């Protein structure tokens, strides 16, 4: 295991040597770039990065330009995890055969996919990689929508969200299904380390990313990525909206070790109502009507129950 990078403060962290360059085409206010920088800046080790087709990929690797000053690969929408499985396996093979010498430091393998490629179209590939135990870290950039293609629903889209394929209208409050619980599903794979992170809580996030890098085997990180374009808040509100997400416990920050041990890693001092989080995002504005207000109340109840469940699970250590 390589020596863990020491990160003293936000200033040194945010001004670290960049392997993800500032020049890219992501929207102003997009949380993807914040997350990617927090992941890449958490280590000094050599990196191979793979990405699924999606916002991150189309905004950072448009020929003849690249935003990546590290080894990087994109194949398709659904297979970034398996692309990395191939890279990781080749690393193993070349080391076994002595074509990479044993004293060459081990690189880190990181895969980024949006919720579309993680929760939906690429799920089988991820599940396969986790079952086989490849030594890599999968980071889901979870913005709860197919943002790259203009805002269609995914199975991460929460109930009540208006998207282009689950639009709110006179006869609909938008998305009808609740968000898929990907963290539990990945923990159920027996992954050695699964965590949910938010880029605004950078200390918590970097701790988890570094733990992920130091863990042998497949690590899953679900990173909340507030989307200015599809959540429809102003580009300068990304961190504020992200704060509301974690402080309302809509995005609780926790980790699950070896599929069993659950630790809550952030407890808001003042829990804010779900209503406040939803109110900051026009994708939910139609819920603030007498007709659909009950959706917000039901959501609050679910969040309360979920928080109680997480605390109970943490307490009983199973």
């Amino acid at each position, binding site marked *: 295991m390589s020596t863990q990078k020491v990160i003293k403060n936000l200033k040194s962290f945010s001004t670290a040597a960049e392997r993800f360059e500032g020049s890219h085409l992501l929207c102003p206010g997009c949380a993807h770039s914040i997350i990617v920088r927090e992941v890449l800046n958490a280590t000094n080790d*050599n990196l*191979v990065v*793979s990405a699924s087709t999606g916002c991150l*990929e*189309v905004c950072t*690797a*448009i*020929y*003849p330009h*690249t935003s*990546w*000053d*590290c*080894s*990087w*690969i*994109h*194949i*398709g929408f*659904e*297979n970034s995890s*398996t*692309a*990395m*499985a*191939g*890279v990781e*396996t*080749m*690393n*193993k*093979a*070349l080391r*076994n*055969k002595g*074509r*990479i010498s044993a004293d060459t430091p081990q*690189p880190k393998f990181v895969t980024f996919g949006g919720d579309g490629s993680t929760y939906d179209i690429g799920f*089988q*590939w991820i*599940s*396969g990689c986790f*079952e*086989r135990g490849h030594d890599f870290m999968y980071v889901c950039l979870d913005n709860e929508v197919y943002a790259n293609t203009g805002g269609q629903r995914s199975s991460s889209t929460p109930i009540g969200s208006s998207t282009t394929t689950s639009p709110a209208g006179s006869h609909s409050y938008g998305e009808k299904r609740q968000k898929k619980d990907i963290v539990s599903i990945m923990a159920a794979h027996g992954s050695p380390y699964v965590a949910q992170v938010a880029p605004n809580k950078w200390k918590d996030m970097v701790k988890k990313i570094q733990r992920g890098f130091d863990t042998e085997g497949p690590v899953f990180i679900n990173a909340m990525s507030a989307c200015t374009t599809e959540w429809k808040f102003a580009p300068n509100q990304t961190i504020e909206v992200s704060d509301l997400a974690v402080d309302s416990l809509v995005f609780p920050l926790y980790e699950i070790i070896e599929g069993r041990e659950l630790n809550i890693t952030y407890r808001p001092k003042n829990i804010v109502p779900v209503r406040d989080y939803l109110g900051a995002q026009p994708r939910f504005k139609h819920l603030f009507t007498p007709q659909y207000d009950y959706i917000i109340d039901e959501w609050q109840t679910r969040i309360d129950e979920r928080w109680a469940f997480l605390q109970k699970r943490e307490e009983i250590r199973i």
Partner: protein
Amino acid sequence: MNKRVLELKDVEVWDGNMSNSNAFRQADVDVVAAYPITPSTATIENYATFHANGYVDGEVIMVESEHAAMSACIGAGAAGGRVGTATSSQGLALMIETLYQASGMRIPVVLCLVNRALASPLNVNGDHSDLYLTRDSGWISIDAFNSQEAYDMTLMAFKISEHKDIRLPVISNQDGFITSHTAQNVRPLKDEVASKFVGEYVQVNALLNFDKPVTHGVQTEQDWHFEHKAKQHAALMGSKKIIQDVFAEFKELSGREYKVVEQYKMDDAEVAIVCLGSTFETAMLAVDQIRKEEGIKVGIVAPRLFRPFPLEEAAAALQNVKAVACMDRSAPGGTVGALYNEISGALINTPARPLVTNLIYGLGGRDMTIVALKDIFRTLDKDAKAGKISGNIQTLVGVRGPALSYYNVEGK
């Protein structure tokens, strides 16, 4: 880790799958990622057995689908090492997206495609539906007609794929069951000779070379996409000469001679069939018999190389015949078969303008027999003598029910 040595006899009894497996073993493949599917499963099973017993020292990953198999091959290839896999039919259909990605990303990969029909109806037997599905995928596609050739082609595929002026993935085709499951005498190269022939893998833009970080799999739109695809096509078109060189080098080692278009008794042939796969072998027997018994001067032309298509060589082979039947072992889906298209296109700008017909045959593993081939030869002979096609251009042969034929020469 020291590899164990597998003692080979001068003549081994291998089926087509075992030929593939041994070519993989001798090529010292670094990563095999695969998903089993009939009839190519044994290629991977045999290789996994070599791995389990220490005869190979690469990595084997058994992934959860064929799409994942090719995805892992692309990742592993981009990482900087030799990769291979095998599939058939539905597996090929499932991985088709990644075939285009592999060739577009210029990743050397060897895919042993054991040809099998495509559902529906579900069918496990051999036809060329999957081979044809790869037509425009940008892969080099080579065809083996028997187990010996399966070994030879798969071994050569690595050398071709990784050549510095090619850097394109290669499919090594063989017929499902007829070749893949028929044990025949195979004369392999000695391990050290084969290994030297294939050569050491030379990394190009490897992801695991951290001194020179590279970006693989970029996006291009109307500003650059055409140039990328044009360059890819140029590499594919240029590969024919290199493939011929590899064939020549292989002949020096093995004594076995391969050409991009194979011919049988074409020197004095007046009529000919064009076919792929094991039908070539059956047809050789039929040709010998009918020449002896009925004096019909028939020959066979078979593209060894399906992609890049050897248009000039195919045309040259057919300059002296009066009638040609292009035999397509795949449901044509509302048009003429692929070989008919290729051969007609090859001939249209040449002095020779033989009658060209299209026979759809052998779907889902239906046998093409010597008896049926002799009937085909007789019709060709009759048409050649009459100077016109007696029926329609396209006929389905060997199918039960009412006769089915299409496309009248006179537009009737």
